[in-house]
């Protein structure tokens, strides 16, 4: 048990060492949670649209990667339907 105390004391630098690691943990965990929440938000938004009967149409060219239709004109490699199914 004493070994553990020695370890946590960090030679008197505990007040600097542990907050450094703690801050990194909190920031990275927060970033990951925020990113996952963003995916869930977007999935919910798409689900709402589907419930309205929108967005199912493969006939329509869903340009997932383009902010607007003009920014993504057709290219030979672009087979059109960019609606990769999002897995939950």
């Amino acid at each position, binding site marked *: 048990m004493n070994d553990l105390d020695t370890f946590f004391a960090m030679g008197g630098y505990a007040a600097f060492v542990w907050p450094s690691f703690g801050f990194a943990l909190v920031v*990275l965990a927060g970033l990951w949670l925020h990113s996952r929440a963003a995916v869930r938000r977007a999935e919910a938004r798409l689900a709402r649209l589907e419930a*309205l009967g929108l967005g199912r149409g493969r006939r329509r060219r869903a340009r*997932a*990667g383009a902010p607007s239709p003009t920014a993504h004109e057709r290219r030979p490699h672009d087979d059109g339907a960019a609606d990769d199914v999002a897995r939950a």
Partner: protein
Amino acid sequence: MHRYANPTLFGRIIDRVRGPATLAGLALIAVGLYLGLFVAPPDYQQGESFRIMYVHVPAAWMSMFAYAGLAVSSAVYLIWRHGVADVAAKAIAPAGAAFTAIALVSGALWGQPMWGTWWVWDARLTSVLLLFFLYLGYMVLRDAFDSPERGARAAGILAVVGVVNLPIIKFSVDWWNTLHQPATISKLDAPSIHPSMLWPLLLMALGFTLLFVGIVCLRARAELLERRARTIEMQAALGGE
């Protein structure tokens, strides 16, 4: 290379990479922490406080690596108008800001016991603080316009212009004789650090990199879904077909 501008393929790649990168990153970080906190001996000058290096240095490396990615993605988007490059840039910015914040805070926590001060306006510290503000500016600018596209372009220009800060950060410790110590590890000569201290650092750096990739893929996935929803809503507003 143009193939990757296809959103479908891009989406498939990020979905495939996301899980493995995140898990491998966490595993490497775990091993690096164990070796860095338990196995590596205390530094002969800095005692146990040198262990802050294991979070500070990888975070500082990531802050610059991420910015390079942000600038390249932004340049590709501005030049070729590939929406996918903009998705990547938007996903990278918050992750880069997070690693920069970690580098700044852990640096202050290291500076206090070693230098006797949390902060000095030395060239290295100031240029990294500027890097942090560039990330924040990028994110704010994206949302400052009614049209997402105009925001993306304005922010992209900021990201590309801000790239001049990277060499300033890198060489600040050589150009100006200030408080921050020069690089311990460089490609040009053998590192001035014992292997038992070096290995955990390299593992942590690789772990941070993989975690960064995993999180960016996750954010890019969210952005692709949002854009698809936006497209559907626009089509509906225009009357479908």
